[in-house]
Structures are given as structure tokens and as C-alpha cells.
């Protein structure tokens, strides 16, 4: 159980650190995939909303610190998206990769809208619409493209087991 939680912790931290460092190398027109969002969605679908929210808290704090945003900006968005995705995925009847990619796309759009909304509330001078058109939508597509690869790797890493999901992810 502890080993599994340590593995989860390391995975989320590595994803967040890669998100803040190396992922710039594969940027297309300043649009980058959101690896932390992918881990949030994965744990939401694989384990449940509680684990997804904790993933959002950990990854969000790291991103808030690395990008010098107000603490809670990324956290709030990831937590809400993780909870919502977990509730939706609990009602999904298919395990098709395309369905997962569509869910990731939708989650990325929701995350982007939330993020821009919070940023706009904090600073109304932010070009919200421009951000949505130029960054959020393309970023959602780019993130959805990574879904099959990352979900396959996460399945192999965590040897996705039914009992883990049944335990709720925390207690095991």
C-alpha cells in the first residue's frame, strides 16, 4: 500500500516537473500538452475522484510554485476537473481509447476555461478570449493526442488492478 502511494507520488511529481521543464521542447506554436491534467484524468478514471483530487492538489501546487502563480490557481482547477471527470467516468460504459481521448479533450477544455476564468477574476486585463482560442483549445487537442500513450504507460506502471480501484485508491 505504501509502495503504491510512493509510486503515485513520484509519478505525479515527475509529471509536474516534466510539465514545467522538458515539455517546452515539444511545444508547437507555444502550445504544450498538459501532462499533469493527463495524470489527474487517468487517476480519476482508474481509481476515483478522491485520488484524482489529491493528484490535482499535488501537481497543482508544484505548477503554482514553478510558474509563480497565486497558490491555488492550478489546484482549484485540477481538483474540480478531477472530481468531475471521476464522476463522469464512473458512468462510462466503454473502455475505448477514443472515448478516453475525448474525455481528456473535454477535461482539458474545462480546465482551460476554469484557469482563464480564475485568471480573469484575478486580473481583468488578461486577454481571456485570446487565451482560450490560442492556447486552451489547441492545448486540449495536443493533450488528447498524448492520451493513448500516457494511459498505456500508466497502466503498465501501476498494473491497473481491480482491487485498487475498489479500495478507492487511498487505503487499498
Amino acid at each position, binding site marked *: 500500500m505504501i509502495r503504491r502511494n510512493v509510486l503515485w507520488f513520484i509519478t505525479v511529481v515527475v509529471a509536474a516537473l516534466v510539465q514545467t521543464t522538458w515539455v517546452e521542447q515539444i511545444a508547437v506554436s507555444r502550445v504544450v500538452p498538459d501532462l499533469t491534467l493527463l495524470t489527474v484524468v487517468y487517476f480519476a478514471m482508474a481509481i476515483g475522484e*478522491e485520488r484524482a483530487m489529491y493528484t490535482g492538489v499535488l501537481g497543482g501546487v508544484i505548477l503554482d510554485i514553478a510558474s*509563480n502563480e*497565486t497558490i491555488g490557481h492550478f489546484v482549484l482547477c485540477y481538483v474540480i476537473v478531477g472530481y468531475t471527470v471521476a464522476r463522469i467516468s464512473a458512468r462510462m460504459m466503454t473502455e475505448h481509447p477514443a472515448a478516453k481521448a475525448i474525455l481528456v479533450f473535454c477535461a482539458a477544455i474545462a480546465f482551460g476555461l476554469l484557469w482563464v476564468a480564475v485568471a480573469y477574476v484575478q486580473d481583468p486585463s488578461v486577454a481571456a478570449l485570446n487565451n482560450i482560442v490560442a492556447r486552451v483549445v489547441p492545448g486540449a487537442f495536443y493533450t488528447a493526442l498524448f492520451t493513448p500513450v500516457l494511459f498505456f504507460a500508466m497502466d503498465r506502471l501501476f498494473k491497473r488492478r481491480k482491487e485498487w480501484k475498489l479500495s478507492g485508491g487511498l487505503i487499498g
Partner: protein
Amino acid sequence: MQLSRRIRENRPTIVLVVLVSLSLVSLASGTRGNIISNAVATAGSVIAYPFLRTFDAIGGGVNYAVGFVVAYDSSRKEATELREQVNKLVPRIADHDAIYQENQRLKGLLGFIESQPRLDLTAAKTVALSQDPIAAAKISSSAGVLVVNRGSIHGIEPAMCAMTKDGVAGIVIDVRPTLSYVATLHSDRCQIGAMIGRDKRVRATVHGSGSDFSHICRLEHIDTKDVVRVGDEVLTAGSGIFPAEYPIGTIVEVENSGSLFQVAYMEPYADPYSVDEIFLVKRAQPTLMEMSGQDPAANQPVVPEPEPLDMASRPKRNDDKAAFALPDTRSIQERYAP
């Protein structure tokens, strides 16, 4: 009981509410991420400081140990190069010193020549006896004889005076076309007429010591009534081409045995063996006093020297009826002769 069950059933929702609330509070407070990053960095620095010091110490020790091996070769190479440079510089410094000393010596010789306007001097260099092997056997048996590279073709004649800048060194005793033999004050063949500087009436003859190991000369033919003291300076008496009143040495001992003449011993000023060049006096020009037969000791002006002309203090033309009285420099015979 029911509350705990309801909490357990709605735990995700409660967690969501708590996390969202905390996020909103944090957003409302406006806490930026760099505060946490700075705190983490500070904590990391504090924790890592001892380790960094340890790593630095270890690295310094390793570099120091490696330096023993790595720096050894470079130090050895540098030492070799420096040694080669020193080997090149030492002869140059020695040459420089020799040139400097020769320069000083030549300056001294030139200064001596310029300081003796009465003397017609010829510089002569001492040479080895082997350059004249025929005379070498004869001369070498006589101690205290120098051979110099000036001879009859240079105008050198026997009985000429040989001197250094310290004083009289000897007398020319034999002349060849290109060589001359000088009997120094070490030679028993050297005899020079001398007088005592304190009282020039006291005359004597300087005899060489006759030994290369003793430089003390003997003064003979001093009248018993004459007073000679230790410390008196001995000068040349001058005769013929030999110049007068040039220093020879100092009296170091007086011996009065009660006979007709007393004997004194003199330490010469000049050391002929310590110089490479000596001067041969070809001609000594007498002073005007000597030519006129007057006593040099009485070389005092009979009439006062005329005062320098002062145009400011000169009387006006109308009052200038008497000319300046010029001193009469005629001798008494010229002045009163019929």
C-alpha cells in the same frame, strides 16, 4: 453514528469542498508561488550547506593530492628552463662586471692623464716575459722587473719615470724597439733620487727592496743632521727627464746608527703588480717658477691682485682724470737696471 456514516459516504464531496475552499482562500489571500519556492530553496540551502562544505573540502583535498602529481612535471620543467636561463645569464653578468671594472679603470687612467698637464705621458701595458725570450732569462733573474709594450720606436728612453695614478712605480732600465724594461720599487736595480715632502731640503736615494715579497724600500744617503720622521711623505727629487715632486711613498721607519748617513724605510704608494697599465713619463715640463729660478715656496703675489672692473662703481668721465693703476710685474733687475 449516522453522521460518521454520512461523512464516509460523501467523503469525496467533502474532500472536494475542503480543497476548493482552501484553494479559494489561498487565491483570495494572493499568496504567490515564489514564497514557497524561496522557502524551499532556503530550507534546501540550510540542509545542503554541511554537505556542500564537506564536498568542497573533499574536492580541495583531492585537487591538492592530484596537484602533487600534476604540478610536479610542470614545476620540474619550469626549474629546467630557469636553470638554463641562469646558465646563460651568469656569463653575461660576469662580462658586464668585467666591462664595468675596465670602464672604471680606463676612466681613472684618463682622469690621471688629464690631471697631469705638465707631464707628457705614454700609457704602456705590461706584457709577459715570454714575448722576449732572449732577454727573459737575464731579466727574470732580477726580481721586480716589468716588461711593457712600449719601446724606442715609441720614444721611450732609459731612465724615464714609470708611474701609476697612485705614485711612482719605477724607472726604465732597458729599451728595445718595441719593449721596455721597468725596474719597479721591488727591484734592487731601482734607484731614484728623492726628497722629503715636509722639508724639501732633505734629500735621499730610494733603493728597491730587491724582493717580490717585500715592498718596503730603503732610503739611503740621508744626512745625519736632517730630521726624518715616520709618516713623512717621500717625493721625487727630479733630475733630467725625471719629474720632480711626485709622490713615491711614506716613511715607516727611521734608523739612525750614528754613522754619516741615516737610513729610513719607505712604503711605496704604487703597487706595480696590481695594475695592467703604467705610465711612462716622456717629458716633464717645468713650471714657470722653475724656469724663472724662483722658489716655489715663495710663490706669493708681491702686489695685490687688481680688483675686477665694476662699471657701476667706475667714476664718471668728467672726473676720470686718473687711469687705473696697473701692477708693475717687472722684476727688480729690469726695474732698476741702468
